[in-house]
């Protein structure tokens, strides 16, 4: 009887050890950033601007893709609704035309943890569109945010 109990205890402990390993693996997987489908940080400002413009014009082409972009953090609050929108702003080659890409930083609501507006940031997120009223907008959802302290 005791042998059986010891064997059951050993099997149970082995099972617990395996489960712990699975949790650690899941944590590591969650910590790894998703594979980037479109890395705009490797491109010239001309192409970055044109690519973001294309995202606004032909959003279906980018739906669900993981996009990485660098620019300036911009924050805007709708005076009527009070909703705060955070976006990454890039400038064209003549520095006269800004183009912004809204993002939702996963697990953070502005200003919790956000750097100051105007800070150079890198955003990686999944492209999606959403409706507000009758208008459709695009943004990077489940995004990660990086910047130099």
């Amino acid at each position, binding site marked *: 009887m005791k042998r059986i109990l010891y064997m059951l205890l050993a099997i149970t402990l082995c099972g617990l050890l395996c489960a712990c390993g699975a949790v650690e693996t899941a944590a590591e997987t969650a910590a790894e950033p998703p594979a980037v489908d479109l890395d705009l940080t490797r*491109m*010239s400002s*001309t*192409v970055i601007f044109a*690519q973001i413009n294309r995202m606004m014009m*032909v959003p279906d082409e980018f739906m669900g893709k993981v996009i990485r972009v660098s620019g300036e953090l911009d924050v805007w609050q709708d005076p009527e609704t009070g909703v705060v929108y955070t976006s990454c702003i890039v400038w064209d*080659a*003549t520095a*006269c*035309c800004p183009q912004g890409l809204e993002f939702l930083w996963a697990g953070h609501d502005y200003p919790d943890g956000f750097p100051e507006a105007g800070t150079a940031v890198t955003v990686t997120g999944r492209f999606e569109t959403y409706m507000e009223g009758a208008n459709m907008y695009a943004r990077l959802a489940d995004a990660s945010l990086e910047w130099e302290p």
Partner: protein
Amino acid sequence: MIESLGLYFSFPLVRYALIVGVLIALCSSLLGVTLVLRRFSFIGDGLSHVAFGAMAIAGVLHLTDDMLFVLPFTVLAAILLLRTGQNTKIKGDAAVAMISVGALAVGYLLLNLFSASANLSGDVCSTLFGSMSILTLTRTEVWLCAALSVVVLVIFILFYNRIFAVTFDEDFARAAGTRAEAYNLLIAVVIAVIIVLAMNLVGSLLISALIIFPAMSAMRVFRSFRGVTVCSAVLSVVCAVLGILISVIVGTPVGSTIVAIDIAAFLVCCAVSGIKGGIRK
């Protein structure tokens, strides 16, 4: 560098820009020779400003596809400016200047008064200098530009001899039975189409460079009309492709980069001409 080029070529917007850029450069260079020889080099500027004014009106009227309005408007202006006649009260360069400046001013005024754009100065800047337009074409616009360019090329090839005759000696061409008025009208329409297309490549303010520089560069090296035309076309296409690729890789405005390379090509042709002249002596 090659890896970067490969990466950029994977994007449709870069491929579209190169296709349309090559076609526009080719068309503008062919008609540029005619315009330069007829002393109408600045017609490109004038018509591009008219097109800008028409785009402003189309924007104020919230027209979805402004080319349907801009193209006929610009064609009409081209016909008015380029028609030859003895009883026009306002002659060539004055007419171009009046229409050009007037359209630009009225267009910008209308945009400031009625436009709902979130970034008016940015839109105006991009339209005037062509910093980004060629890289933001939709597939429909690419097909439209390609179709119009092919039509222009076919017209030029089919009517090459008559265009040549009307360009060099209109009175003789008329005396020989050529319908000079009809061909002048055809040239005016074709120029208007090219101007509207070329605005996507280099913007309104720099269109004249796309028309003038390849022709002037070719004239430094060749003497025959055919030689100048072919050289102008080759130079224009090469400069446009280099300009687009450099602006994409380095991050410079597309229109200005193309014009800068056109200027460099002109200087090279001047040097070649100087060397050839020195060798002959």
